[in-house]
């Protein structure tokens, strides 16, 4: 992976790497630093039967449901957040049975990703005792083999086909830098089979060499990158921009043409037109 051809490719080509039926760990949380331009591009390309793997999806999972692109989800908490409440198209997709949910605690989903990242078939996870989620998901407890008397829930390995990370900056080779919280992006990038990145901009290699400690994902784990300014729209990308609340509000309207208008308003559309 490390030394192939140029890693920086157009968004359409990046999204085209994802076949129908893929499972996608999407970075960020709710309306914050999600790979939203990428998700819209999947919809434009007519992708079907996708799975979202994410502790706290919101806009991303909702728009995929709205477009009929999703068939499965493994998620902790799903909402639009920021006063927008539930994710309405997601909600309907679950209620109607159009999308099959594996409901997690955020930390149990992380445990499953850790199992994949650490190369083991399952991962113990604290808590869960007394929750109906255990029986629902068929999670089993394991007795501490060292006699403490503790029994702990084991979460089966979760290995997404792709992690898609929304970054502030990348190097020419695909090193990934994120400002503020990294949410669950680190473990996603270590557990998925392939890592795709959408970044706000390219930063000079020298800046990565000056502060290599800031790199969240090294280039050799990254398969390909697209540069899409404002690509987390209508969500935030700290410290570059905040949530576009009017755009989210417009998206929430349930009327014909709203989804198409919203997709047409994505900054990646203008960007592509310039290319």
């Amino acid at each position, binding site marked *: 992976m490390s030394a192939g051809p140029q890693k920086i490719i157009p968004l359409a080509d990046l999204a085209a790497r994802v076949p129908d039926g893929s499972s996608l760990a999407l970075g960020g949380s709710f309306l914050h630093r999600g790979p939203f331009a990428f998700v819209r591009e999947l919809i434009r390309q007519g992708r079907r039967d996708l799975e979202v793997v994410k502790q706290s999806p919101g806009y991303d999972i909702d728009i995929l449901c709205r477009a009929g692109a999703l068939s499965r989800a493994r998620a902790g908490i799903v909402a639009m957040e920021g006063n927008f409440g539930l994710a309405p198209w997601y909600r309907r997709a679950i209620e109607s049975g159009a999308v099959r949910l594996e*409901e997690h605690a955020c930390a149990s989903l992380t445990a499953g990703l850790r199992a994949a990242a650490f190369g083991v078939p399952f991962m113990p996870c604290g808590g869960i*005792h007394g929750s109906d989620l255990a029986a629902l998901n068929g999670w089993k407890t394991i007795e501490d083999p060292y006699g403490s008397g503790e029994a702990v829930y084991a979460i089966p390995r979760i290995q997404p086909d792709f992690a898609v990370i929304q970054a502030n900056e990348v190097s020419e080779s695909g090193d990934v830098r994120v400002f503020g919280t990294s949410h669950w992006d*680190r473990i996603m990038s270590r557990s998925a089979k392939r890592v795709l990145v959408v970044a706000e901009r390219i930063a000079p290699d020298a800046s990565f060499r000056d502060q290599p400690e800031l790199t969240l994902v090294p280039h050799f784990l990254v398969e390909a990158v697209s540069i899409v300014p404002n690509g987390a729209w209508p969500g935030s990308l700290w410290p570059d921009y905040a949530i576009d609340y009017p755009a989210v509000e417009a998206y929430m309207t349930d009327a014909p043409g709203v989804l198409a208008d919203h997709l047409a308003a994505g900054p990646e559309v203008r960007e592509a037109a310039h290319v």
Partner: protein
Amino acid sequence: MSEAASNVTGAWSGFSYIVTNLARFVRPNEITFSGVNSALPMLACLLAKQAYPFAFTYINVAGGVDPNPSEVPISSSDPVLAEGSRAIFANEDFYDLCTRGLMDLCFLGAAQVDGLGRTNVSCIGDWHAPRVRLPGGGGGAVMLPTARRAVTWRTEHSRRTLVETLDFVTAAGGMHGVVTPIAVFTKREGRLALASWHPEASLDEVRDRTGFAFSAEDAGPTPPPTPEERAALASLDPAGRFAVDAGIRLR
């Protein structure tokens, strides 16, 4: 009484009642956490930082550690909540902190709460054919049993939200505290017990609007907001935007 009026007179509004009584669960030198979908606990933590004469560690889902946000965000997971922070303590880290037993106070959302302080955030109706699909597991199933204390809030106090039987047990372990527009419950001997009620409500009203049985021993009207609490909340929500957004009514 309007929010504005209640702020002036020093009486409680539903909004100030919930935020302030959540804040009163914060204790000196502890580690306190607020998460996603949690505007009221976020305000409570920021209020406690301003109003109380003690230090504590406030960590939040945006990775902030004792931040100084330049504004109070609408989204309680907004990255502005890490502004001024000297560290980023991201999701894996704060969950691990909780499961290894170091999270002193954790604010967790709930759609339904039962008398044991267990919660449902998954569904109304049958999980497999829900009337309403709710946000889902979130922090609860792992944090509720592992945090030293967890506290939740409901903006509606009713037999639909405070129930005898949960439609689904998303998280067990049991809340240490529950705050509604008219009541504060705390756990006593494994069950939620009434600690105090809104002075404009009454014990009878709380009983009437609560789906589970509870002890009210030693309960009385909630002490009014202190000047420091009122001043802090006014500074956090000077235009009353959060109060309006929360849309909390006593009845």
